[in-house]
């Protein structure tokens, strides 16, 4: 079957053990305000414009049949509502300032692309990770990809927000060697405020997965002014300690590397002005999971 993805990132060293190829699914049901991959929210293709690459040759304007582009004295302006994503502008843009984010692909083709680096997985350890966006929104596609990988004896991992039903999760578990998920904020109401959804089902799925014997890595993105305090991290550690299972718990520092993408996609960055997490804060907070034995 076909799925929609944003990219396949090779040589990833942060999405599971060893050297990995990561498949980023397009479409997410959460709206974490600090998200550094906003291109994965929308389950449809999007036109991206990177102004720093634009040489202002106006080729896009001349080839576009739908009057998406306009410019006066100032920079190029896009009327995204008129765009039907035909790709003419992308094809003709010399500076590669324009691109379409999102690619439809069959599970077989995605797996073939991922497995083209099999030799490196074998010699360097590692494997394939499906990330997002939210993979569970395209569970059947992911299952097909993972099944092909497992048949090739490749280590597999999924990075999910675990908001899916247990039925969906358990349907994949035979093909997943490592589950990775976020526990972003402990309090459900606050979770909803910052991500658009409560976290009851996430906690439930974490507990269920862990107690089913799955190998699980839980991560908390530490966001300045949101969850960067001892109390918040402590509560999460408390919860994870109460769950019996094979859990690794990590803290990830917030960074601003994805900020530029919002503008490029015509989206609003809700945390503009937020700064990278102070490394001293991260180091201080890291002691808490250590105290809990993580």
């Amino acid at each position, binding site marked *: 079957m076909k799925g929609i993805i944003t990219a396949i990132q090779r040589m990833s060293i942060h999405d599971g053990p060893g*050297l990995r190829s990561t498949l980023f699914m397009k479409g997410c049901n959460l709206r974490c305000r600090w998200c550094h991959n906003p291109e994965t929210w929308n389950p449809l293709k999007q036109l991206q414009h990177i102004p720093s690459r634009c040489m202002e040759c106006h080729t896009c304007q001349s080839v576009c049949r739908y009057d998406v582009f306009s410019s006066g004295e100032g920079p190029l302006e896009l009327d995204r509502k008129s765009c039907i994503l035909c790709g003419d502008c992308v094809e003709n843009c*010399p500076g590669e300032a324009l691109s379409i984010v999102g690619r439809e692909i069959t599970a077989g083709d995605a797996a073939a692309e991922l497995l083209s*680096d099999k030799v490196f997985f074998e010699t*360097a350890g590692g494997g394939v990770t499906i990330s997002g966006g939210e993979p569970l929104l395209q569970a059947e596609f992911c299952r097909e990809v993972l099944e092909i990988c497992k048949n090739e004896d490749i280590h597999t991992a999924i990075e999910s927000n675990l908001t899916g039903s247990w039925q969906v999760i358990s349907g994949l578990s035979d093909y997943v060697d490592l589950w990775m998920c976020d526990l972003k904020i402990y309090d459900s109401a606050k979770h909803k405020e910052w991500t658009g959804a409560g976290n009851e089902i996430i906690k439930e799925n974490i507990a269920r997965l862990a107690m089913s014997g799955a190998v699980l890595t839980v991560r908390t993105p530490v966001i300045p002014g949101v969850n960067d305090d001892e109390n918040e991290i402590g509560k999460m550690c408390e919860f994870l300690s109460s769950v019996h299972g094979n859990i690794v718990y990590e803290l990830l520092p917030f960074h601003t590397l994805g900020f530029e993408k919002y503008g490029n996609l015509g989206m609003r960055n809700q945390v503009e002005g937020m700064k990278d997490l102070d490394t001293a804060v991260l180091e201080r907070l890291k002691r808490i999971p250590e105290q809990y034995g993580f």
Partner: protein
Amino acid sequence: MDKIHDTRIRHLRERKLAQTQEKLRVEGSLDEDDYGRIVPPEGLWHTIPNHPDGSFYGYDAWADNFCSLMDVHPVYIDPDDAFAGRWMYFMSKMRKNKWNPAYPYTHLEENIRKYDIICGIGDDAHFAPDYEMGVKLGWGGLIRKIEYYKTVNTAPEQIHFYDLHLRVIRAVQGWIGRHVAKAEELAASETDPGKKQSFVEIAQTNRNILEDAPKTLREACQWIIWYHLASRTYNRDGAGGQIDSLLQPFYENDLEKGTLDRDKAVYYMACFLINDPVYWQLGGPDENGKDQTSEISFVILDAADKINTSLNITVRVHDGLDERLMKKAVEYLVKNRNGWPRFSGDQALVAGFMKNGFSKELARKRIAVGCNWMSLPGLEYTLNDLVKVNMAKVFEVAFKELEHRNDISLQMLWENFTEHLGIAVHTAAEGIRHHLRYQKYNEPELLLNLLSHGPIEKARDASDDGAEYYNLAIDGAGLAIVADSFAAIEEHVEGSGQISWPQLYHAVDSDFGGPEGERIRLILRKTGRYGKENSTGEKWALRVRDVFTVDVRAESEPELRRCFIPGFFSWANTVGFGEAVGATPDGRHAGKPISHGANPSPGFVTDGASLSLAKAVAKIQPGYGNTAPMQWELDPTMARGDNVPLIEGIIKAHFKLGGTLINVNIMDKEKVLEAHKDPSKYPDLVVRVTGFTAYFPMLSPRFRQLVVDRILEN
């Protein structure tokens, strides 16, 4: 480690740094190896010409010059160093002219210029001596061997041949003897007990090997150093050998006798390595496939870590390699970030060399002992890394020739290119033939003959049928420029039609001038370039590889024992080759450096570049036992201790896929930029420019710029 040894190594490093600064101050920049050479005293020795052009040519002149230099060459003894001797004079570079004008090659000159060929005529060394024979025979044994063959080959010219080699050996012995005398004199007058002991030991070690073969690790190292220094002086020969298996018996014997411990061995090897960044191989299979790693392989790596200067150690990776050696090697690569060690891939090298009709046993003995090159120690004459065809220039010739044709097509351009490439390769081969015919009258190999199997036995120079095998190297350069140019034309001129042929020619002729030129250049850069898997560029690179390989192989002459072997390598010529070529349809500006060896042009993919690079370069190998190295600019953020298994994995994967040699650079961008601005800020910054490492401040500004660009673009 013993505190005294640590202190001595620290002093040696400091002295080395000062010597490098001195070289830069007195002689200016150098876009080559460090070589370990130091500045000679002014006016001490001058060449003795035997030709009106001021140069010297032929057997007698080379012997006269070398022996006269040895007679006065300064003595070098350092109480912190376990070994005596440094070299100072680039004899071959001191000549006014490198080719004897009595043997002109005017019939080749037009094409050499036209295709910007580095023809190798008059070039020297670049094949490997058999150090094992050297340490078994010693100088006395070599003299006895020559004396014996004097009774076998008795024609007057043969006797003369032998006498010249005997003179050379005695000159080297004289040089060593003067070190013995000086060390004794220093020992006698020294009041510091530590230094006194050091001078006594240096004198004794050298006295022991004046005639006799070395018996201890220290003597073996000192013997190798003397041969090497003499050979470097003679004609810059820098080939190494399988250093661990060479020294293993001495090391183990000393340990057994209780005259050596590991600490002292590390100190000896540190002194040995700082003497000269020779290309030594560690690990790898012996002729029967057994891994040659032993304890001394680790001793050598630990010693390299101690001195951590410009080094050219290569680890030969094969299925049976001791995993601990591989791990240790990558750990030091990551820890020191000084471009050492390098890694060579046994599987493809052996399988490739066997395709020339050689046995597996022989193929395993062909080891990594030069910048990009492999050699059978003592058995072959190769002209390795000396003959290069600038394929970007060949492309330019073919492209320009069709400029005003109305019926021009991609197919026509390809056919024209292959025709010119064939002529260029044949010109290079003819140059080699010319060299082989007359090199003995120009620059005989009086030093390398001594440790080769054949020249002494046959009384013929290694360049003149004296060697056992003639495996002659021709390297192609600028592969990515050519492949990407064809790909850009296929995609944007004949494919999408975004650019017409006249527009393309106009843009290239004007070096992509003006906004329209820049627009066209950017469109051309949007091509699926070589390096990206299954791209148009890769398809063209493979086509170029196939044609080049066939052309080079076709030059072989089995009846003359001449086997021509293709490779892809540009050495430090990327800048010079680039200057000779105008703008190219891949979007490269006129005069900019050509692509490096077999590497894709920088920026060829946006994601997973290291993996794509490893795959592309493995796939592009000509496959006959010479290398097409992968020059890997490893992201410093990945080069961390905890990523050692991943880096190790990428190296192994490249070799599993068919790769032959990996040169790695791990450069901190900010540091390189600062050093480029003010080289004096980082006097000990080492970069692996290509097959060789160099001190960054020693490089010329244009070469430093090349290194900076490469790092920024990656």
